[in-house]
């Protein structure tokens, strides 16, 4: 009996099928799917560089006239002020990242490394909050922040991050820290380090991948956040990029697609940028969440 090589492509039927052809078919399939998926975005970016008359009626990516007009016009069209919006988004996102890193790492260390009464109950609570839909806290939180007079400030969007409200990242870090050998902790103990020192000096540097993943995902979630700013940031000078984009067509009139696409491209650019720089980290992070 002939031994079958495990390198057989998955969907080949007869053993005599040429693996090369099948590999090619696979690539073609994958590329086709990719093109269909990514074309709209690429088209939008290309359209943002075309003059406004050509924006919507051309299917292709290329044009004879390239222009930056859409960008210039969209940036401060009408009462819109994207400098402000980008600034707001950056501030909120940075504070959110710092908050998540702070609160999630502390909590994760406790769950991963320390023993304490009710640990199982609290861990169960943590998991339960991961599965809780946000609707049930949406209205009361709004009322709470209203009572605190935090409306029209960044606080409702940022402070919860400092209080470990994103259980997913806590979970991520717990799983990660658990993989670090305990001998390191013990060695540190022998050297006289208390838990705080162990946390700062030993665990955190080693947990850099998990911290990085947390920071990146917090960035993306915070940057894309829409419902939060919609509820809490009513004054246009506090708007984030999401709100600015949403009101774009209302404020500038529906023929301003060129500038809309230009601003959308700019809004997506940081995400794509960070992604290109750190995609390995992101993907590894996502991959490991499912595995442990």
């Amino acid at each position, binding site marked *: 009996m002939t031994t079958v090589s495990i390198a057989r492509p998955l969907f080949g039927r007869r053993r005599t099928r040429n693996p090369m052809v099948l590999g090619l078919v696979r690539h073609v399939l994958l590329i086709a799917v990719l093109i269909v998926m990514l074309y709209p975005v690429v088209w939008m970016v290309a359209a943002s560089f075309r003059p406004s008359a050509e924006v919507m009626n051309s299917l292709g990516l290329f044009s004879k006239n390239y222009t930056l007009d859409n960008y210039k016009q969209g940036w401060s069209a009408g009462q819109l002020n994207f400098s402000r919006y980008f600034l707001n988004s950056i501030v909120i996102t940075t504070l959110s990242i710092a908050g998540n890193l702070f609160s999630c790492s502390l909590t994760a260390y406790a769950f991963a490394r320390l023993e304490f009464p009710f640990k199982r109950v609290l861990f169960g609570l943590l998991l339960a909050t991961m*599965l809780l839909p946000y609707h049930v806290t949406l209205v009361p939180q709004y009322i709470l922040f209203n009572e605190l007079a935090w409306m029209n400030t960044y606080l409702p969007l940022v402070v919860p991050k400092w209080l470990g409200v994103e259980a997913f990242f806590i979970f991520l870090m717990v799983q990660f820290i658990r993989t670090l050998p305990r001998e390191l902790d013990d060695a540190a103990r022998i050297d006289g380090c208390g838990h705080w020192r162990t946390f700062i000096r030993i665990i955190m540097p080693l947990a850099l991948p998990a911290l990085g993943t947390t920071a990146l995902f917090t960035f993306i979630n915070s940057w894309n956040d829409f419902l939060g700013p919609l509820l809490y940031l009513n004054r246009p000078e506090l708007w984030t990029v999401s709100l600015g984009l949403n009101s774009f067509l209302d404020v500038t009139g529906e023929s301003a697609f060129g500038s809309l696409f230009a601003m959308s491209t700019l809004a997506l650019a940081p995400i794509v940028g960070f992604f290109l720089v750190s995609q390995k980290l992101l993907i590894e992070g996502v991959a490991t969440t499912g*595995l442990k």
Partner: protein
Amino acid sequence: MKSTRTGREGLTAYVFLSPWLIGVLLLTIGPMLYSAYLAFTSYDLLSAPKWIGLDNFRRMFTADPRYFSSVKVTLVYVAVSVPLLLIVSMVLALLLNKGIKFLSGYRALFYLPSLMGASVAIAVLWRQIFGSTGLVNQVLSLFGIQHGSWVGSPGTALWTIVTLNLWAFGATMIIFLAGLRQVPAELHEAAAVDGAGPIRRFFSVTLPLMTPLIFFNLLLDTIHAFQAFTGAFVVSRGTGGPTDSTLFYTLYLYQQGFAELRMGYASAMAWALVIVLAAFTGFLFLTARRWVYYGDER
């Protein structure tokens, strides 16, 4: 000695946990209890909550046809997009699993949309490309097919949002891909030696081993799907239209609670959802024993 150390360790632990504990109490448990109370009141934030007993629920279940629209829309959305998401992610993960060239490139490119999927920018783009003169119709007209606006017609508006969710399958795919990598090659070999073709191998070897991840993704993707908001809001311009065909549960809750200041009603809606989701989660966990295969069981 040991008891004081554990005692002290316990104390230290609680210090480490304090931000999270405060957060859980003030931002999760507290609000949940308060909204449970509000669900029985009529409250517009400007005057005190007025106790009305079961009236909110009565209205929800008997006197509010829009509520049922929102439930229907959301259920259809979840029931269609989550399985589709899982299937598409699995298929593509399988395609990518065989050590082909440019694997990391493909993986990265498939993943990129899921980072952008929740953004307003993409939702805005989606509204344009599915509009009456948008990209999709332009492509269709190349094949001689004329069609009206996809987002303007009640029969198709919801599907545009389903495609949006599907477009962001990358994250789920990566989780599956990582799981596939962990299927031991020996098992495939052994099955192949026994004469199993690739499809048979998939169903007998791969799929059972992947059930923990399928479970994980099913759970998280479902909860995520129930919370859809941005896409629906931007595509329907906040209306949930046309004719409430995109009136997602979250969107309706937002409209009732914040745009019309019926916070009691919105709280009732929120709790109805939580109870349903809890039941679903519980059901999933219970049945998991039947179909989720953990490698360490015999």
